[in-house]
């Protein structure tokens, strides 16, 4: 079964530990904001370097890993760095650096309260994200999945207004409720059937379960990963908009939802395995189910006037692309899925950053208020345009690459209706992003507002958002490392096919 030899390495533990250490330092330097924020930045940079240092070994085909604790034999907290996990970790840790700068700008500009708690929660969330990325078994994944939920609660409810608390409670109810009810149930059933929780390239359930049981477990898994925001468990995501914008960026691009889809990919590839899912036709079912979410969420997004709400529904729709890709169970589909994780990450974080920048600079939140804003905030809106184009999937933006592979995947898997879904959704994406760009650049600002003069948000915000937009652009031309990692993921997953 597990023919892959695991190279012992504590690097994943360090990657997780570094931001935990930062939590302590942040708490200790509570009274000194500069020091506090220095620790955040330092931790993010160190974390990224640790993650990046693992790239060569993984590209070599090695799998790094170690066992942290054995609770009882069979229940372990253990880490394993494979291509898929590294892929996710690389993206998340890179985005954390950028988000940290942006956070500092945003939080200082808005003079938010409880800043120490904010940075601490952020750092824990990143640790837990690494934990999910590097988890070697379902239990480890579950633990870190829950930690993410718990430590993002104070972030979502940061403002502590009744509205914010209500949103945060809804967030917690959906995520914690579904994972305790369904994900844990699925894990128990998986353990009972397979006798192990260890991820494996060929899946661990194949040959151990009846068809009905496989379907039951699969449905439970999908219902349990509400973080992937597949309908009908999506409404926590718009509710979580009450959070400050950098948090939304974290939720939508870096940690939370990406963890959800990452878990879905893990379950499809490493718990069930392509063969089992293809045998019982679950891949196809999931693909069509994801298509449903793609279309419906896009249509809802069209009708949102609040910019962040529109972005939120866009995320719901885009996440289902990722699910769709892996559900196609074909090499190109999986490549597209994995690539979309990172490309959507950069695109969406740009969009949220710009939304935050607009808010900080003008306190505007609605699409209908954005007339003519392009002239006052040229950098921001240029970045927005790049991000939106990437979302729609038009060259020369990174988003095109993943769409391209998804189309290839649909053809390989012989699911031509999926092509229609992709086409329709591209049109819908264009339908809800292009009007914003049009308003910003081609309409004149409302009366009473000066049209002239640059009025950008603080540099600490504008620079990160420009960077992410440029990365989203750059990834079209140099997808190298990510594509190579995706290739290894595909090779592993389809090896036993």
């Amino acid at each position, binding site marked *: 079964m597990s023919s892959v030899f695991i190279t012992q390495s504590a690097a994943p533990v360090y990657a997780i530990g570094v931001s935990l250490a930062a939590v302590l330092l942040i708490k200790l330097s509570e009274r000194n904001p500069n020091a506090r924020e220095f620790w955040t930045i330092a931790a993010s940079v160190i974390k990224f370097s640790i993650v990046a240092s693992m790239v060569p070994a993984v590209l070599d085909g090695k799998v790094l890993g170690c066992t942290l*604790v*054995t*609770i*009882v*034999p069979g*229940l372990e*907290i253990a880490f394993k760095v494979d291509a898929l996990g590294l892929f996710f970790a690389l993206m998340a840790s890179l985005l954390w650096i950028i988000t940290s700068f942006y956070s500092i700008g945003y939080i200082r500009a808005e003079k938010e309260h409880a800043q120490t708690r904010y940075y601490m929660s952020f750092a824990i969330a990143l640790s837990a994200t690494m934990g999910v990325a590097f988890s070697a078994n379902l*239990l480890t994944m*579950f*633990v870190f999945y*829950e930690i993410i939920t718990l430590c993002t609660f*104070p972030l979502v*409810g940061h403002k*502590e207004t009744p509205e914010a*608390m209500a949103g945060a*409670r809804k967030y*917690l109810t959906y995520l*914690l*409720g579904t994972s*305790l*009810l369904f994900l*844990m*149930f699925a894990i*128990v*059933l998986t*353990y*009972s059937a397979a006798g192990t929780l260890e991820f494996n390239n060929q899946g661990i359930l194949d040959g151990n379960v009846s068809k009905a049981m496989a379907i039951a477990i699969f449905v439970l898994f999908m219902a349990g990963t509400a973080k992937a925001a597949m309908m009908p468990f999506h409404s926590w995501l718009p509710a979580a908009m009450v959070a400050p914008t950098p948090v939304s960026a974290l939720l939508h691009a870096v940690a939370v939802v990406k963890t959800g889809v990452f878990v879905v990919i893990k379950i499809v590839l490493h718990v069930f395995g392509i063969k089992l899912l293809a045998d019982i036709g679950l891949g196809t079912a999931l693909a069509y189910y994801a298509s449903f979410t793609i279309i419906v969420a896009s249509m809802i997004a069209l009708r949102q006037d609040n910019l962040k709400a529109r972005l939120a529904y866009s995320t719901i729709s885009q996440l289902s692309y990722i699910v769709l890709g892996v559900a196609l169970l074909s090499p190109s589909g999986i490549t597209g899925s994995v690539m979309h994780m990172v490309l959507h990450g950069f695109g969406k974080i740009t969009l949220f950053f710009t939304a935050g920048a607009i808010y900080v600079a003008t306190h505007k939140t609605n699409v209908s208020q954005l007339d003519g804003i392009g002239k006052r905030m040229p950098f921001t809106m240029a970045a927005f345009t790049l991000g939106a184009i990437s979302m729609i999937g038009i060259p020369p933006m990174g988003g095109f690459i993943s769409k391209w592979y998804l189309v290839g995947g649909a053809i390989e898997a012989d699911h031509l209706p999926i092509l229609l879904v992709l086409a329709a959704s591209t049109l819908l994406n264009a339908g809800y992003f292009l009007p914003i760009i049009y308003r910003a650049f081609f309409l004149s600002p409302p009366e009473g507002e000066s049209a002239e003069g640059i009025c950008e948000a603080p540099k600490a915000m504008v620079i990160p958002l420009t960077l992410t937009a440029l990365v989203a652009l750059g990834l079209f031309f140099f997808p190298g490392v990510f594509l190579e990692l995706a290739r290894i993921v595909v090779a592993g997953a389809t090896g036993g096919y």
Partner: protein
Amino acid sequence: MSIITSNFPVLLVITPLIVAVCIPLLGRINKRIPPVAAVVSTAFTLMVSIILLSTALDSGPISYWLGNWAPPWGIEYVVDTLSGFVLVVVAFMALMVALYTPGTIRDEVPNDKETTFYSLYMLLVAGLLGIVITGDVFNMYVFIEISSLAGYALIASGKKREALTASFNYLILGTVGATFFIIGVGLLYMVTGTLNMADLASRLPEIYDSKVVLTAFAFFSVGLSLKLALFPLHIWLPKVYTNAPSAVSSLMAATGTKVAAYALIRITLSVFDVEFSRSVDFGSILLVLSCAAIIAGSVLAISQTNIKMMLAYSSVGQVGYIVLGLALLNETALTGSLIHILNHALMKGALFMVVGIIVFRTGVEEISGLRGLGRCMPFTMAAFTIASLSMIGVPLTVGFISKWYLAVGAVEAGMWYVVPVILVSSVLTAVYFWRIVEGIYFGKAANVTLKGPTGLLVPTMIVAALCVVFGVAASVPVSVARLAASALLGGGGM
């Protein structure tokens, strides 16, 4: 073996008894002696019980003949894996609560009665240890009554008048339970002529179809379920836990129901055996009751506004978990059940100790009054949070371990539909604990003035920390529990 170590089984019970008798005298000399005596003697019993358990693990069950009369003529004390395990749990919690007691009873018990309190405390501990260690059913009854009587007075020792009626109700139902128990003993004696558990176990299988045996089984089960507060026989419990002094609720919540659970397991699987329990469909009845207990306990807990009441109803639900493993009757589930005896003792002990600290320092018992306390009492609240997470069953805490084994055991038994019950109750538990945790950390602090320094924190933190330690390094208790479970199910229980 020296004369001391060879007599450890009896010393385990006699030590607290002697200390209980001496305390009233010592208290006359100096009021500071009784608490110290309580701590020292419970520490000694803990040490002894650990030694006994490890001896039992190394070289098989220890049988100790009291007065050197061979069983079944004389009374026998037995330390096997199961009883050794429960002894350690009881002795440990007794020590922790003994450390904790001096801080809280100052406020809760009239000054002139503190000495009596310690004497009764030691009697309660002696009774509980006696129930666990004895291998004779009638002797078990005597110890049940010792622990119960001491318990009734301890519950009523506080200043709340509701404690009196709570104690009286408990006395009535507890006596019904104990009397049912001796009816069961009488019926078994009628058809076997013996009172020794091992002897009963060897003589019963021939007459398993006798109606007398069936009835005895029914009386044992009902009587012990009353002591155990198994839903719907739980009605005495919430008032008792709510109104008793904190130290008493902590000890009783941590050990009282656990020992009753031990007695039920011992009688149903060790005196009777697993085949008999299966043949009378004992499992299905218990399954329904335990699931009802788990859900009802959680639902009732949610609707409470008093935090002690909430914890008490949560105990009703947790008792359901212990019984659930017994109902499923397979090794994995029974392991879960036994490990939950330890785990729930730790979690609920910690929670009641925390609540005791809160009440002691702020005088608040209502959940709404806890807002913002996370800032003024960080360590206490950290202990509370850890124990709450454990109650929910978050991995890396002890609560997860027991739920995991119960859930996997349920699937093994082909009763996968029990898993949702466990999970739904986890969610409900999350609801009622989250409500508090959120208030503690996010609420605007109410105007409470904290009074008094607190030495209560040390034992509380130790217990709370163990919730995590045994959640991470679960191999040790789990392996012991698994050994005990396989012995029970393999028929070699005694």
